[in-house]
């Protein structure tokens, strides 16, 4: 069964200025073991596509005009909130861009990890290494243990102690590791990573990407990596989809698309990356106006 199958997704968003269609017929399939890179400029609709998979766009502002998003064969757009909650954290993990704002500043990271682990454990105790029907005390104990293990796994030194620390006591890269741990603690089948490295130092970026890559390889899961950075795509992704103004212009294996872009926009995108050979004053922007999204 296809892990994630987005078919003809059409989304419109309401704002002060009225309703604007953001996504125009997105089609995308993600299989286990694939790392899909979704590239495009800010406002191209790639983030909204990611959020749509977890159904995280508030119904008051977002409206699906047409299409379906099938996760393991079930259409999440038709699923109830309870059903969705069972998927989130357990089947679908998510990582967002800014590690400083995505951790709750007033709670110990342990608390936050354990809550996610507990949630996943309630749905499926095996995630925490327990038999089905485990008591909630066992669940709590296991959740704590798994939280430490997970922190250790994402490379936080002295995880057992640091679990009692608050987010502000970690560096940016470390925080992103914590967030990855939170996203992966429920052993999800699909990981949606929305610009996971953008806010990080270049040196840290590579480590985080490697961490994600290793986890994917170990667990054989599908990944939707949302980024505007073609470099990231080149480093880690197996497949790539290029988005522009709510449409996917081009998709395929990374090697194919990046070497032989068939669409002019992709070419332009590739050209806009400054390389060591770019001369001063040659930095090129992209033409056209993006639809505004508040």
């Amino acid at each position, binding site marked *: 069964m296809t892990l994630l199958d987005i078919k003809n997704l059409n989304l419109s968003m309401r704002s002060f200025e009225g309703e604007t269609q953001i996504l125009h017929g997105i089609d995308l399939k993600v299989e286990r073991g694939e790392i899909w890179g979704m590239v495009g400029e*800010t406002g191209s609709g790639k983030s909204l596509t990611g959020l749509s998979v977890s159904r995280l766009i508030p119904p008051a502002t977002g409206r699906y005009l047409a299409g379906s998003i099938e996760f393991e064969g079930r259409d999440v757009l038709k699923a109830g909130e309870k059903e969705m909650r069972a998927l989130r954290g357990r089947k679908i993990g998510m990582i967002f861009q800014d590690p400083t704002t995505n951790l709750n500043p007033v709670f110990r990271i342990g608390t936050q990890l354990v809550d996610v682990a507990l949630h996943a454990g309630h749905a499926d105790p095996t995630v925490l290494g327990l038999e089905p029907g485990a008591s909630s005390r066992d669940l709590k104990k296991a959740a704590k243990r798994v939280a430490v293990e997970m922190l250790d796994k994402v490379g936080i030194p002295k995880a057992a102690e640091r679990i009692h620390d608050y987010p502000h006591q970690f560096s940016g890269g470390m925080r992103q590791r914590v967030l990855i741990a939170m996203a992966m603690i429920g052993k999800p089948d699909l990981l949606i990573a929305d610009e996971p490295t953008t806010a990080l130092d270049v040196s840290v970026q590579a480590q985080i990407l490697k961490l994600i890559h290793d986890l994917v390889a170990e667990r054989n899961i599908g990944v939707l990596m949302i980024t505007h950075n073609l470099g990231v795509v080149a480093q880690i992704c197996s497949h790539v989809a290029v988005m522009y103004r709510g449409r996917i212009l081009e998709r395929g294996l990374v090697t194919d698309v990046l070497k032989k872009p068939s669409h002019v926009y992709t070419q332009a995108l590739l050209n806009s990356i400054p390389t060591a050979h770019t001369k001063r004053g040659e930095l090129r922007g992209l033409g*056209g*106006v993006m639809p*505004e*999204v508040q």
Partner: protein
Amino acid sequence: MTSTPTTLPKRDQSARLENWARAFYRFRQSWLSVIGLAIVVMLVAVALFAPLIVPHPEHVAGGTNTAARFTAPGADFWFGTNALGQDVFSLVLVGSQVSLFSGLAVVIIAIVVGGLVGAIAGYFGGWIDEILMRITDLLLTIPSLILAMAVAAALGTGVTNMIIAIAITWWPAYARLVRGEVIGKKEEQFITAAKALGASWPRILGRHILPNIMSPIIVKASLDMGFAVLTVASLGFVGIGVKAPTPEWGTLLSVARADMPDYWWTAVFPGCAIFLAVLAFNLLGDGLRDVMDPKARR
């Protein structure tokens, strides 16, 4: 999920106009603010023209009509009459003068004094800041209503004394606000530039910093207008207010307490007037805050 328009900024003038248009649009978005503005405008109009339009100006000047004591509200006396047969409607309408005028005066004095202290403290920093702000902090710990009452009682009744008494307790809040804003602005490039050009400190404060920190001051002032009206009424209510026969809402209410509950109208209408005025300024202030100080949005 944010995006920035990639269009070039338009010319400065029209951009400013557009800012105003946007601000006004945002203000209009909140119908409560519009109502607040409408009531404030109405109150100001009433305060300005009340002596000319009230049905019984002679009662406002202290005239009495003891034959018509405690007439219930009706066609002749819309809000009824009080113990001296005076028309409550006329008194309440003209009462807006004292409330609005004193409120405005209190806020202006507080802004001028507090602004000066705060600006000097913030601009010079160091020991000047330390001394001025310690005094300000101390004054802020003193219960303001009790202080205002004590000062007003000692100075004797009268509008001026009341204004002084309230203003004494109000300026420290503005000193704090202005100091914070000045400190925030003084490190900015355009100030450094002005300094480099040899501008004197009053000029820098007055011409460069002050115009840039007006928004939060105006917002606070409009909110404070409501509370100033309330404080004026409070002093009137405890009996330290204006001199008779000047009608003032708090005093009217306080005097009418003796006639409750049988002659409820003598108390209810002045009370409602206070409520309405304070409410209107609060609504207006909230609206202005949304427009001028988006950071502090509710």
